[in-house]
């Protein structure tokens, strides 16, 4: 297991180096111009790693709580909720500092989660119902975002670039926003993962072994929401990473959350980094949004999972 995780970490490191080196600008020129390396590439690679890892962990926690391999923050409407909150702050209060975006996104995500729990009736966290209502919710949030965008045409550019899920134009200031949240939430997620293993044994067993089932669920879901919302606040709605990364991680290291959560983080980071590198090198000088690329990769994989899943 340690070997596998080491390999993944090594691959991530290689990708990060590639991410710093590759780009529209010629390599030799880039080596001489440290400004490009330090100011643009390095910060961007760091953001891709942090945001991808956040999404991966969020996905692993969500799937652990709902005990449905098809769940992920974007499928239960949380991503769309924080997207709506962030768009609202961007469009209606443009004079607010950028730092307000993260709290707004987190609050939006938590509100979406509360709305979801209220709509499904919190006595049963039945997977199929949660996902159905979650998708319906995200459709509605999406419609509201579209409406906001079209009613505030003068602000549309700022919001559009951000909404498609892209790492374009992100810099060190975003890294400093991401890092503290990350340092607080990741140890928390790791301590929760022990208890999620107990939950996997079934509610009754977990209860007998001394776990507050309800409390663990709520804490884990809230952590997942916060992580997903942070990544949404910085790079927009990047889809499918929260779904695909935990799955791949489960294939590699098995279902124990203590291993699963860090592996999912590494894989999520690697995936987002890959998508971002591809997004800026596929058709230079045009930049594709990374979110588009993650859906092109993620949607077929999701379909493959659906065909294999037997628990309907």
């Amino acid at each position, binding site marked *: 297991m340690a070997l596998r995780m080491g390999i993944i970490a090594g691959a991530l490191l290689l990708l990060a180096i590639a991410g710093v080196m590759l780009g529209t600008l010629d390599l030799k020129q880039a080596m001489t111009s440290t400004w490009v390396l330090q100011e643009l590439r390095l910060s961007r690679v760091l953001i891709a790693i942090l945001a991808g890892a956040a999404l991966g962990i969020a996905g692993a926690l969500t799937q652990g709580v709902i005990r449905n391999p098809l769940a992920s923050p974007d499928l239960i409407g949380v991503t769309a909720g924080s997207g709506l909150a962030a768009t609202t702050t961007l469009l209606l209060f443009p004079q607010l500092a950028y730092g307000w975006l993260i709290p707004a996104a987190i609050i939006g995500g938590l509100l979406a989660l509360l709305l979801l729990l209220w709509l499904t009736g919190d006595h049963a966290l039945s997977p199929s*119902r949660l996902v159905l209502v979650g998708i319906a919710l995200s*459709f509605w949030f*999406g*419609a509201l975002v579209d*409406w906001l965008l079209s009613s505030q045409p003068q602000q549309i550019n700022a919001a559009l670039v951000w909404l498609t899920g892209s790492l374009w134009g992100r810099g060190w200031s975003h890294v400093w926003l991401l890092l503290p949240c990350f340092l607080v939430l990741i140890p928390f997620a790791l301590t929760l993962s022990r208890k999620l293993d107990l939950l996997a044994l079934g509610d009754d067993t977990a209860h007998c072994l001394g776990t507050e089932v309800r409390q663990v669920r709520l804490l884990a879901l809230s952590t997942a929401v916060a992580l997903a919302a942070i990544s949404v606040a910085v790079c927009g709605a990047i889809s499918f990473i929260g779904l695909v990364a935990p799955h791949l991680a489960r294939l590699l290291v098995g279902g124990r959350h203590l291993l699963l959560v860090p592996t999912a983080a590494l894989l999520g980071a690697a995936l987002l980094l890959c998508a971002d590198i591809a997004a800026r090198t596929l058709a230079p000088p045009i930049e594709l949004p990374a979110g588009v690329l993650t859906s092109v990769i993620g*949607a077929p994989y999701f379909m493959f999972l659906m065909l294999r899943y037997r628990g*309907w």
Partner: protein
Amino acid sequence: MYFRTQPILPLSLLFLLLASGFVTALLGGSTFNLQLRHLWEALSGNQTLATELILSLRLPRVLIASAVGAALAISGALMQGITRNPLASPTLFGINAGAACLLVVGQTISIPLLSDMPLLIQTMLGALLAGAAVFLLSGGTTGRLHPSRMILAGVAVNALFLALTRTLLILDEQAQSVVSWLAGSLVDTDWTHWQQLWPAVLLGISVSLLLSQKLNLLALGDEAAAGLGGSPERLRLQVSAVVVLLAGSAVAVSGPIAFLGLLVPHLARLLVGQDYRMLLPTTGMLGAALLCWADYLSRLLIFPTETPVGLVLALLGAPFFIWLSRRQGRTA
């Protein structure tokens, strides 16, 4: 089941709703102050600026709105009929996204065979592709569509087609004209669009009316339908062809308009019950009326600029979808 009751009152109210929606969308929400007498002048052949405006801009737009509304609503009702699943509809099946994607592919990349085909064929091909993908993924071949499985498959197919469409638009750099179309809008429609649209819609609606009796049989279950002399498989194929025709032609003109196909059949069922012979025409009329009113609202919402009509419907339709999925989840 006893079908003979004729709900006269709801139908006449519905007709009134359609007529008033038609006239309101024809005259209302304009920077010119159009009045009813202008409509009268236009009908009696006077030529003024106002009548010119009505005849060349507004009339095709309203006609297209009603045809598109009817087509999408009926295709939703048909899909709910053959899948026996209340959530089936063009939007959630990814049919709209598929049609839009192939249209953009046809216009931006020159693929020899595809790009020479008329728009209508391109969108129908996309609708077919997406519909078939969702149907297969949600286990349609095994007989029963699981609701959440279907929705998930629809989400995946939708995301894939949407991502492809966006990539192409960004790479092509002439995105602006297509972007407003992608939200589902009736802004740039004129008589040529109407010429494309009406034969397909007329054909689709008449065939679906011919098939309505068989849909009633199918509602009793596959075995019962087969026992009464129908072939469920053949009927499903025929109806799917009609759905592709209706949804594909509607999307070719107005862009993907969300939730009409989900919302309207349920409302119509409340009005006239389950009998498809009554349900399909009612659904068509209600869809047309709703889209006319939504078009009027879309012009009024932020007055001088137009909101895409697809957006208005999405705002109205999504809460309904939430309500419906809550009910579904309870039974599933």
